[in-house]
Each structure stands twice: as structure tokens, then as C-alpha cells.
């Protein structure tokens, strides 16, 4: 008799544990960041100090860019309003400390995903929202059209605190070229010094070069060389130790990319609820319980698509239409020859 009682209680306990794991309140309880965000009423997001196309503020203080849109997507998902985001502009040097110290909850600031950053310093990268690579910009009248024309004694302007400094060394060392690195703390000063002629070349991520070129006195006097010397997968980062929050940010980004894949846009999202395709229905919250595991309601993904748009819309609005990088290159869907490929929401 006692034997059965013992088994019965353990069974009840197991069911109870399973039950609590599947209820939404439990997920919210487990994620301190989610709870704090909902209590505060805004998402705390770290962005750059001004990189057109990625995160840039206009004169009125409105932030736009593909990195900004990731934070807006999270705000739409957890708070129901894509505008409830507090942006904190950070230098490359400050960004990780701001995140690990809890000043911000998402770092969406053209940050390269590397092993040491992911493993070492209390950070977790949740995905890639822009595939980039480091390149070089030179003055057109220099006649340089390829990095193979670089000679000993070349000086290269760049930022400190980025992977750029390391890639640059690897590149020049492997080519056996002696060079002078001139590393500034802020991007604006790099642009000013390069523009003045302090350096022969300016090196950073190609997207950054394209964006900064627009800030030069005569943008047409400069060109980005075709070579790419490194892999720079840029993506949002969260603090280690809050896996629910990590999942929310990851799947907010994935939702935007998958929405583009299935042709769901901010304009047609509502009408897609009646689609015949169950995958599309799941994307707009019309089928399944896709928000429960995060402690969110079922229309969290619908709100992202309606308020922020899918990845393609975000890219077009921020990067293509502004003339920064009209060609999507690797940042095209895998179905269209790019490498954007995300796990399915199901």
C-alpha cells in the first residue's frame, strides 16, 4: 500500500513539474529581464552612436536602421508597441560593459559574433541580422583598385575596440606588408582624419564603409575595394543567464526573416490569418501556441510583422532605399541565392 502511495506522489510531482514548465506565467517568472521589461514598459536597447542604415538618429531623435528594428521587434512582441524602446548610444568600447552590467537588455549594434566574445565575457549572441565582411576604402584618384596594390608604409585609419584591428593585422601580416595603424575611439573622428588625408586607406566592415562614405566631404572621391578580408556576422547580443529572454530576441529576429520567406508583410499580415498554409498561419498567430513558451500571448509574431515589417521591408527601408548598399549580396534569402536561413517557427 505504502509502495503505491510513494509512486503516486512522485507521479503527481512529475505532472506538476511538467505543468508548471508549460504554463506561460512560469516562463515569465523565470525571465527576470522579461519581467523587468514589462514592469518598466520599455525595452532597453544599446545601439551605435550613428551608423546610417543600422542605427542612426535623425534631428528629432527618432532612431532608424536594421539594428534598431530588431529592438523594435522585441518591443512589439513583449510590450505590444514597437515604439516602446529606450535607445542608448554606445561606443564600441562601452558596448559589452553596458550589457553585462545591466544598463541595457539587448545590444543591437553591428557587433561581430566571435568565439571569444560569445564564450568569454558573459554574452550570448542570438543570431545574425547582417552578414558583413571587412573591406578597405581608398581615394579614387590614388589609382588603387585592389588590395594587391598596397605597398609597405601604407597607413590605415580604423576604430579601436573592434575585430577590425585584429583582422587588419592578420591581413597585412599574411601579405608581408608593413603598415601604420591609426586607431580612433569614435567613428566620426576616423572619417574626419581619413577625409583630411591622414591615412591612405580606411578599413572597417564593408557596410560601415558604405555608410560612412556618405559622410565624406565628397563621397564620390572615394571607393570601397572589392576584396573582403574577413567574415563579420553581425547580430544582436544578450546577457548570459536568461535563456527565455535570449529565445525571445532570437525568435523575434527569426520571425522577421521567416516572414519575408513566406511573403508575409506589414501590409498583408492580418489577411494571412486565413491562409491555407499552416506555416504562414503559425507566423501570424492563427495556429498553434507559439508564444506560450516565452510567456507571451499568441499574436506576438503578428505584432512584429505588422509594426516593424519583415526583414526585406526593414532592409529596403533602411539600407537599400538610402543608397547605402542597394545590392543585398549575402543578405538575401536562401531561396533567392543569399545565405539568410532561419529555423522554422513551429
Amino acid at each position, binding site marked *: 500500500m505504502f509502495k503505491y502511495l510513494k509512486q503516486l506522489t512522485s507521479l503527481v510531482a512529475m505532472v506538476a513539474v511538467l505543468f508548471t514548465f508549460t504554463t506561460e506565467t512560469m516562463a515569465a517568472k523565470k525571465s527576470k529581464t522579461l519581467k523587468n521589461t514589462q514592469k518598466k514598459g520599455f525595452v532597453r536597447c544599446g545601439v551605435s552612436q550613428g551608423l546610417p542604415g543600422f542605427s542612426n538618429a535623425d534631428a528629432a531623435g527618432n532612431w532608424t536602421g536594421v539594428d534598431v528594428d530588431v529592438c523594435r521587434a522585441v518591443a512589439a512582441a513583449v510590450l505590444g508597441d514597437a515604439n516602446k524602446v529606450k535607445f542608448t548610444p554606445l561606443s564600441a568600447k562601452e558596448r559589452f560593459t553596458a550589457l553585462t552590467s545591466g544598463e541595457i537588455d539587448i545590444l543591437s549594434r553591428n557587433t561581430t559574433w566571435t568565439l571569444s566574445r560569445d564564450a568569454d565575457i*558573459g554574452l550570448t549572441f542570438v543570431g545574425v541580422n547582417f552578414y558583413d565582411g571587412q573591406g578597405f576604402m581608398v581615394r579614387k584618384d590614388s589609382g*588603387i583598385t585592389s588590395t594587391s596594390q598596397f605597398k609597405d608604409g601604407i597607413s590605415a585609419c580604423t576604430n579601436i575596440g573592434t575585430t577590425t584591428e585584429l583582422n587588419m593585422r592578420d591581413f597585412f601580416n599574411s601579405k608581408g606588408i608593413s603598415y601604420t595603424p591609426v*586607431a580612433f575611439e569614435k567613428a566620426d573622428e576616423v572619417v574626419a582624419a581619413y577625409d583630411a588625408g591622414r591615412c591612405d586607406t580606411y578599413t572597417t566592415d564593408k557596410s560601415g564603409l558604405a555608410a560612412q562614405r556618405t559622410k565624406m566631404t565628397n563621397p564620390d572621391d572615394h571607393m570601397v575595394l572589392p576584396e573582403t578580408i574577413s567574415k563579420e556576422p553581425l547580430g544582436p547580443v544578450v546577457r548570459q543567464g536568461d535563456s527565455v529572454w535570449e529565445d525571445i530576441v532570437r525568435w523575434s529576429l527569426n520571425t522577421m526573416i521567416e516572414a519575408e520567406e513566406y511573403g508575409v508583410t506589414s501590409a498583408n499580415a492580418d489577411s494571412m490569418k486565413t491562409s491555407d498554409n499552416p506555416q504562414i498561419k503559425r507566423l501570424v498567430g492563427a495556429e498553434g501556441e507559439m508564444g506560450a513558451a516565452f510567456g507571451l500571448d499568441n499574436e506576438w509574431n503578428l505584432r512584429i510583422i505588422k509594426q516593424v515589417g519583415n526583414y526585406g521591408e526593414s532592409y529596403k527601408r533602411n539600407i537599400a532605399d538610402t543608397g547605402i548598399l542597394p545590392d543585398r549580396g549575402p543578405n538575401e534569402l536562401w531561396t533567392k541565392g543569399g545565405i539568410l536561413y532561419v529555423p522554422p517557427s513551429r
Partner: protein
Amino acid sequence: MKFKKILPQFLTLLFIVLIFGFFTMNAQENMDTRGIEFGFGFLKQEASFDIQFSLIDYDGSRSYARAYLVGLLNTLLVSFIGIILSTILGVIIGVARLSPNYLINKTASFYVEFFRNVPLLLQIFFWYFAALRALPMPEDAPLIFGSSYMTIKGLYTVAPVWNNFDVFFIALIIAMIIIFFFNRFAKKKQEEEGKQYPKFLISLGIFIILPASTFLIGGVDLSWSFPELKQLAKTSFTYEGGLGIPPELIALTLALTLYTATFIAENVRAGIQGIGKGQKEAAASIGLTPSQVLKLVIMPQALRIIIPPTTNQYLNLTKNSSLAAAIAYPDLVLVFAGTAMMQTGRAIEIVGITMATYLSISLAISMFMNWYNKRIAIQEK
């Protein structure tokens, strides 16, 4: 009674210890939960980034500790040059402020009021960005003094190439030792017999003749390496050979010197004005020449007023040199608290080391100046 005296001090100490304990615990806990480790092992790892300008051998294959040393030496270099130049300029301007000549007097006043009232960071930006843009590109730079080029990429000048430099260096040290003992001997002679030697001329003679003789008999040889224009691309040039001084160092030194010199000038003026007129008149009345009055009567007393506030200015200059980060001069803050901190993510350790370093530099300067101040203070008998 005694207990009452000790209690507040004990409580203060306890309070401070508790606060430190709390912050340490808090940091420890937060770092644990976020999976951040604490330790100084990273200093031995390969830095893998290059530095523009270094006084010692360095490249990216060296350790973070070596990169720290490069940054430290660059900070010390700019502070050292800045302190020397700002002292010279400060003394000149300070004396000029007291000049009876209206033009000199007003120019010095205008200089002081202008440069000390514009924020230093702005001045650094001005010298770097505004002055830099005005400099010619390497291929257009005119030849200065038959050997140097001032360009947007820096100052390129001749570099000495030594043979047997160590012999020359030892001769230099021996000369200095001889000068030291000679001066002591001369002072003693003057005190005992009232005999005066031309100390300065003899010292200078020893200082020049002894090291110079090593060229003839010590096998020391000196040749010069001149900068030569090199084409990198159609419109892109640089200089090779010689000595290249980066524009960042020039701009930073210029800004720090011009800014700090204004404060030193005011200290000098105040020090000289702080000495009573009677002192000067009394000295003149016993037959001292005007230069002897300044050297033997006014300056020794004025220095006591000048030294303590000037020490503060030296400390300020050293700490202000950390603004270098804004214009890419690879000082301690840019190299170590910048790049190295970013690459390793060791914020607490690196900021701690950097703070301790600045504290040590400042305390060392402070100790030296206190020693000097004590030495020149009036010994009450």
C-alpha cells in the same frame, strides 16, 4: 575619555571597510552569475593588435603586458615632453606678464586668458583636425632646415644612426658625475675662501668636451638617416627612413603645453610678485648686479611660492594626457583601457590596473616635487 576619542575613528574605518566589502561582494556575485572570470592571466596572452607608435619593440605577437608597457611609455613620453615645454613656456610668459613693456605685457595676458579659458579637449581637436587639414600632403611638403618635412602624416626628420652608442653614453654619465663633484668643490671653496669660479662655463665645457672626445678615441661614430619620399600609389606618398613623429603626438603635446603653460605662467607671476620690494632694494644696495638679485635673492624665495601649485599643474598635465584617446595617440587609455579591454573583456582588471598606474605616476611626480620643495625651503635656524 580615550575611548571616546577612538570611537568615531573606529566607526569611520569600519564604515569604509564595509562599503568596500559590499562593492567587492556585489561585483563578485554579479560576475559569477554572468559567467565572467576574474584574473590577470590574460596579460600573458598574445595581444594580436598592432600599435601605431611605440618606443620599445612591439608587434601584435607580443603579450598584453607588453602592449600595456607600450601605452605606459607613450603616456610618460607625452607627459615628460609636455612638462618640460610647458615649464619653459610658462616661465617666459610669467616673466613677460610683469614686463614694463606694454606690448609684451598685454600679449602675455591675452595668451593666458585665451588658452586657459578654452576647454582642453577642444584645443586638442583644434590642433589635430584644424591644423592637420592645413598641413601639406607628403609630396607637396617643403623642405625645412634642409632635412625635415612637416606633412599631414607627421613630421619626418633626420634620425641619428650611432656606432658604439654605449661608449658615448658612459662618457656622458661620467661627465655628469664630474660636474656634480666640481660644483660641490666650487661651493666649498667659495664658502671657505670666498673664491668664485665660472661654474657654469666650466660645467658646460666638461659636458661637451668629454663626450665629444669619444668620437676621436672611443670609436664612436654618428651618421644621419634622412627621410626620403616614397610613392605608395598614384597620388599617395609617404616618407621612408629618418625619424617619423606622428601628428597625433605633435597635436597632443602642443595642446597640453599651451594649456598648462598658462597656469604655470600665473604661478610664476604670483611667485615673483609675492616677494617684497624691499628684498630687491636691499640686495641691490649691497652691490649685487640685477641678474644676481634675481638669481640669488628673488628666485630662491619665489620658488617656494611657485613649486606647490606648479606640482598640481604637472599632475594635471599627466592626467589630461589621457584625452589622447580622442585623436588616436596610442597612450595607456587608448591601448590598454581601450583596445586591450575590448579584446579581452576584462573591464574590472584593466580599469583597476590603469587607475593604479595613473595613481603611481602622479604620486611619483608629487613625491619628487615635494622633495624638491623641501630642499629649497628656507631652513629656519
